[in-house]
Each structure stands twice: as C-alpha cells, then as structure tokens.
C-alpha cells in the first residue's frame, strides 16, 4: 500500500529517502555502529586490511568512536590492482551476485563485487539520488549511461526501477536514436554524462528538434567532471534542471552523493559512505569546510568493504543545513584531482596508461603530450607524439601504419578512441622540471 501512496507526498520524497533527514546524533550513532561492523568484517575476511591493521597494532576493537577511523591505514587504487582480480573480496563467490570493472592504471581493470544486499543498498542510494532530483513514479527516464561492466548504466537502472519510474535502457551512443526516443516516448528525465548530453543537444538541433519543446524537465549527470558553465548551458539549451551526482566503482558506483533541488553541493549518503577530507600531502584529517582530498569508507558494503579509500578528488564538506532540509553533509562539486587521472566519456585514464601504450609500440618513450579538447560538446583526447629517428620512414605508408599502431595500442589499454598526431622533433612544448603531460583545454572551449 505504501508503494502506491507515497507519491502523494510530492516529488522529491520517497519513504526510502527518510534516511536523508536523520537527526545528526542518530546518524552519527548509526555510522559508528556500522563502522565497527565493517572494520570487523574487513579484518576478518580481507588479508590486506588485517595485515595493515596488525602492523599498526590495531584490531577492530580499536574503533571506539568515529574519530578512531583516522587511525586506520588508507586504501589506494593500486591496492585493487595489486590484489587483482578478487583479492579484496570479503564474501565467498557463492554470495556474490555481480561483478563490475573499470579501467586501472596499467591496463588491468579494477574489479568490484556486490552481494544481493549490496545491490539493494546500491538501488536505495540511487533511488534517493533520483528522488532528490524530483524524479518519481510515472516519470519516463531515458538512461544513457553505458550498460555493461561500467557501473553507471546498471546503477542508475536499478535506482530508477526501485523508485517506480519507467526506464528506457538506451545505454550510451546512437545519438539520433536517443533524440528520437526523447521525443517519441515523451521522456521526462535523462541520465547521461554531461559532455554526451551537450552533444545530444547539438545533434537534436541539427535534426530540427528543440529539446525545450519536449516534456524533458530534469537531467542527472555524472561520471565526469563538469563546469558550472556547462550546467548553465545545459539548463538553458535543453530547458531542464541539471543535477550533479557523484560516485566511483571502488565505493559502489554512482550513488555516493547527489544534488537536491537546492543544487548547492552534493549530499553524501553518509549512512552508507563515510566521508573524510584529508590533506593529500600529509594524510591528516581536515575539519569540515576545509578543502582537501575526499576519503571514503563504505559502512555497509559486504562483498567488498573499502576502508579509507583515497578518491584523489579534491573537494570540501559542508555541514551547514541545506535549504532542502536534508541533514546529510554536502560535498562541493569536484573540480580537480590530486593525481593526474583524466576522465573521458566516463572512462578513467591515467597518463601512465598512454605511456604504457607508447612503450608497447616503440620500445622507448617518445616525447609526447596529451591534449584534452571539447569538440562539438564531446570530450576528445588527442595524443601528440614527436617522431624519433628510429621510427621515421621515408615511406608514407609506414608512418601512417605507425600512427595506426599507436592508436590501436592506446585503445587496447584504455578502451578509448584517441586522435593520434605525429609531430616534428622538439615541436611539442616542454616544461621546466616535472614534465607536464596533460593539457586540458576543455575549460577554454565550451
């Protein structure tokens, strides 16, 4: 009965969303109980966590308050790579119902696992994400996040089904069909990467369709950083309200934090994911309001608990009450990272992956640079490589073949189609000291 009546509460609220409004004391109490339990689980079932805690003389009993979390060692992306594929699982395979994977730093993917309970938690935080964006039962929602190993598509899908919306599981790509479905199905909301949606707006215009004339009213955007200017453009050109969401596969996928109607920071679903801000240099925990690196601890994840995972995303936590009434702390929109990871079409790419691909072809590392540009609203990675004497040939076919092999090698490692340009020696800019490899020109060219 509840399921049939809750929509009367108005958009933006769902019974499951009640966790968004927990009084602070009750929330902290819940967090501490869950933290003790998850540290115990990680210690009991994951050798990496147990060994690291043992080395510091810590046991699960060392956690007596939320502040004690700061005594535990960090987990980093390399830990997932080093234990590839299943080394951090805390559940036997018989209890794991799903695996997802995303790109790692050296070509090996990062593998993540979910039990049935984890999928339920994931669905509930995604439900809360969509509820915060004013999406409810009766809405038709086009899900243009990629379905597959990437967590975006299925994560959003389960949340939409949980809230009772009508899902159009179109996945990414095939822009003309996306435009057709938006119009013909009278879609109310869309999930996509912001850069892809900008592309979709442009394509729709080329097809003579003004998205402002359609019933589309909300967009849920994530999986890559975007600027306030992009949001303004999306909202103006599509006539919708654009919501920012945040997540990462290592923690759960999308559904770690999301914006509400106030569109002023992203509420962290901190009853499941405990946020800390640290100084990326010293590792010291910083108070709310100070800028630093976001560190997340999963409080309820069973298959793959993550203790103090360093996200490398730079943000700050806002504890002040939000206009929407939610008590969950907010994190500011992530604008930069403390490492050199790039996010292209929702895929994580590191310069070290490009280097590995170049090494695989040439055997030695040429001078190169990576240029990120936004072309027709779509992010494009350009890799420019200086031609070295060993690889120069007087035959044009050989040079074209070299370029093809490099592009193929980069695609093998990253899954991305990049534009490879061969350049004359000494023609690429050089920086003093530490080599600057990435030139992000996306901010300049909206």
């Amino acid at each position, binding site marked *: 009965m509840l399921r049939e009546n809750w929509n009367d509460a108005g958009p933006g609220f769902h019974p499951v969303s009640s966790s968004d409004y927990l009084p602070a004391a009750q929330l902290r109490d819940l967090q501490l109980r869950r933290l003790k339990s998850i540290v115990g689980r990680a210690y009991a079932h994951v050798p990496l966590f147990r060994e690291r805690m043992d080395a510091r003389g810590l046991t699960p009993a060392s956690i007596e308050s939320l502040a004690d979390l700061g005594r535990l060692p960090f987990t980093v992306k390399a830990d997932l790579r080093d234990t590839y594929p299943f080394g951090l699982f805390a559940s036997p395979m018989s209890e794991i119902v799903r695996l997802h994977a995303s790109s790692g730093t050296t070509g090996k993917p990062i593998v993540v696992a979910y039990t049935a309970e984890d999928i339920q938690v994931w669905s509930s935080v995604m439900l809360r994400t969509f509820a915060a964006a004013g999406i409810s039962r009766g809405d038709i929602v086009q899900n243009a996040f990629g379905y597959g190993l990437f967590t975006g598509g299925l994560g959003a899908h389960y949340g939409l089904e949980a809230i009772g919306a009508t899902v159009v599981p179109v996945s990414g790509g095939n822009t003309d069909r996306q435009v057709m479905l938006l119009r013909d199905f009278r879609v109310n909301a869309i999930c996509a990467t912001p850069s892809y949606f900008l592309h979709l707006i442009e394509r729709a215009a080329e097809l003579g369709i003004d998205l402002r004339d359609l019933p589309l009213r909300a967009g849920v955007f994530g999986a890559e950083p975007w600027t306030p200017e992009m949001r303004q453009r999306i909202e103006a050109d599509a006539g919708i309200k654009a919501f920012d969401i945040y997540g990462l596969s290592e923690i759960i996928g999308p559904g770690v934090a999301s914006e509400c109607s106030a569109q002023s920071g992203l509420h962290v679903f901190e009853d499941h994911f405990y946020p800390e801000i640290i100084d990326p240099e010293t590792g010291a925990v910083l108070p709310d309001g100070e800028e630093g690196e976001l560190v997340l601890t999963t409080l309820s994840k069973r298959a793959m608990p993550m203790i103090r995972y360093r996200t490398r995303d730079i943000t700050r936590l806002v504890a002040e009450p939000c206009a929407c009434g939610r008590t969950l702390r907010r994190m500011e929109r992530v604008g930069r990272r403390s490492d050199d990871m790039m996010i292209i079409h929702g895929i994580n790419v590191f310069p070290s992956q490009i280097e590995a691909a170049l090494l695989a072809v040439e055997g030695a590392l040429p001078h190169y640079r990576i240029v990120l540009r936004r072309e027709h609203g779509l992010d494009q990675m350009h890799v420019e490589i200086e031609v070295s004497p060993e690889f120069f040939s007087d*035959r044009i076919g050989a040079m074209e073949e070299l370029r093809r092999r490099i592009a193929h090698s980069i695609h093998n490692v990253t899954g991305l189609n990049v534009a490879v340009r061969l350049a004359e020696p000494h023609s690429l800019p050089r920086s003093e000291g530490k080599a600057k490899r990435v030139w992000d020109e996306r901010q300049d060219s909206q």
Partner: protein
Amino acid sequence: MKISQLSTFIENRSGRLRAACEALAASGINIHTLCLADSRDFGILRLIVADPLAGKAALEAAGYVAQLTDVLAVEVADSAGGLARVLATTDEAGLDIEYMYAFSTAPGQQAVVIIRFSDPDRALAELQRRGLNVVEPVKLLQG
C-alpha cells in the same frame, strides 16, 4: 650504383617546408630534385641533393628528423612508352616499388626517374642484368 636520398618529416603547418629548405640553403646544399608525399597531418620530403650527409646534418641541426635511404636513378627513354618499358622490366624481375618520382632534366636530355625499391640491392642487380641503365650518382649530379 645506388644513390643516397635524403628524407625528412614535415608537419602540415605553414612555414615548415620553407624552414627545411632554408636550413639546406644556409649550408649551401643544392637540391637537384624532390618529391613531397603528404597525408592529412604531415608530409615526407624526399630530396636528391649534392651532399646527402651534409644535408642530413643541416636538417638535424635545424631540429628535423632526417634519414638517408638508397634509391636508384634509372634512365628512361624520353618518348612515348619509355617509362612503361622500364616498369615492364621491374615487373618481370618481381621488384617491389615503394614510390618513384622524376629527376629534373633539361629538355632533349635523357629522362631519369628516381625509384625507391623495397630491396635496392636486388633491384640494382636485376636492372643491370636486364640491360637498363642505372645512372651513376657522379654523372647524375654533374649538372
């Protein structure tokens, strides 16, 4: 005799071809003939010059990547069917041609084509055995 051809990588940007030619000019290197192959983003300039080694050094000093490759200068009758007959011979010998271009010659002189074979040594032996005139570098560059 094989001829040493100078080649260099040129980005498809204005002024780059000119700068390469100026680098050669500054070292007093005369260009006898050239061929520019181009793709969308870059070109490969192939040159027959009086002193290929000095030419390579001049280009490298100017920041270019340069290379010397062996090519053959083959005499061709300056009349209808001249080149076709040469190519019939290379076909019969099963020689693989990467590319070719004409050598600049004065009117009335015998025509000469520069041919880049996949295997220049085998090509030289085969062409000589079949009676084609492979021009000596000295004679070629006299003019």
